[in-house]
């Protein structure tokens, strides 16, 4: 599990961890039942306060996304699909806002902004197809 923390971003670091874990699950890079690094391990890896990692894990647990088995580590929940389409939508909207703001500043019209998005989406489609062809 590779996470990237940016303390200059402003968003509290525990929220950065929470959002990235959700993305990893939504994108299938973390699957139900996968084990997460320990609080200490992740804190040392990211060079952040262990209390911050503990808080992110705790809140993900309360949201039903992670489960902690006493003395046996933290895992991605196997109970149903914790990330509903609605939750994914909220995460994406946050990114869309940043993208829309940037396009606005650069003077892009809505049509031009959507065209860029379409282009990026098509690229993603191709990458995904290439990936499938390369599989054994």
């Amino acid at each position, binding site marked *: 599990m590779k996470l990237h923390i940016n303390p200059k971003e*402003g968003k509290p670091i525990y929220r950065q961890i929470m959002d990235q874990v959700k993305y990893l699950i939504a994108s299938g890079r973390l699957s139900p039942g996968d084990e997460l690094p320990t609080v200490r391990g992740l804190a040392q890896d990211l060079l952040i*306060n262990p209390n911050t990692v503990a808080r992110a894990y705790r809140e993900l647990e309360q949201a039903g996304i992670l489960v902690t088995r006493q003395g046996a580590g933290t895992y991605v929940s196997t109970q149903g699909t914790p990330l509903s389409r609605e939750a994914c939508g909220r995460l994406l909207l946050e990114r869309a806002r940043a993208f829309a703001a940037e396009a606005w500043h650069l003077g892009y019209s809505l049509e031009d902004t959507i065209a860029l998005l379409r282009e990026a989406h098509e690229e993603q489609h191709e990458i995904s197809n290439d990936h499938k062809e390369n599989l054994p």
Partner: protein
Amino acid sequence: MTEAAGLESVIEVRDLVRKFRRKQALAGVDITVPRGVVYGLVGENGAGKTTLLKHILGSLRAQSGSVRVFGMDPVKEPVAVLSQLGYLSEDRDIPGWMRVGEAIGYTQAFYPGWDEAYAESLRERFELDERAKIKTLSRGEKAKCGLLLALAYRPPLLVLDEPSSGLDPSARHDILEAIVRTVADEGRTVLFSSHLLDEVERVADVVAMIHRGKVVFEESLDSIKARHGRLLVSREEEDGPAPELPGLLHASGGGREWTLVCEGELDALRTEATARGLLVLEADTPSLEDVFLARVAPGKRKGTVS
């Protein structure tokens, strides 16, 4: 406050005043460092951070007010306090003629609780040559050597004065890692001063901001972030002074677009700005650096804190 932090405090400073000739270095400082937290002391150069730390170490006597470390006065009971405290000073004062191995042996003699295996593992991790003379070490190596000497008796309190100042990224990485490891050990406390606010943001539970010898605020990093907001707004008028907003601490920009760092809850700020006819382009939580610059150094440009 974090769960790890009990009610018990390791350091209590009350109404501490210090004058050097005519200069008022500390003008009534109160801080409380709870057990088990990473406590970050931030402020500009000359704000009083080092002077405060010297009182905590007992190398300066309080002119008025009180200083308690583990419930004791560090000036009256230096041995009892210093045996529980690891300290890395800003100028890493280790005699230059000593070799690394000698500095380790010399320091070890003062501390019955010295952990030889731990000292050796730190020396290997920091890639310090036992036979190298201190004066031939790079800044980063000197800092690592100082850190080794401060950590190897596993003190319950670690005090670091500007630990990353002037260091290359690799040495900064080691310093941060040492802070993270120290606090991961149950109940140990770290107090450090720094002007590198992104580092403070990474590791601190509690932050105290010192400005001109006074504590501007002392609170958990989470709460600092929760009660400040940063808005990027656009307005109709091409020119004129910065837009007004309740709780506004600092406005930067010009023309139509402005960045406003404010005290207040983010949604309320967004609503208020909209009600005043401003178009809110972005609304987010400011970084500690944004808050710092808005509060104590509004004249300075981003990236120039020191």
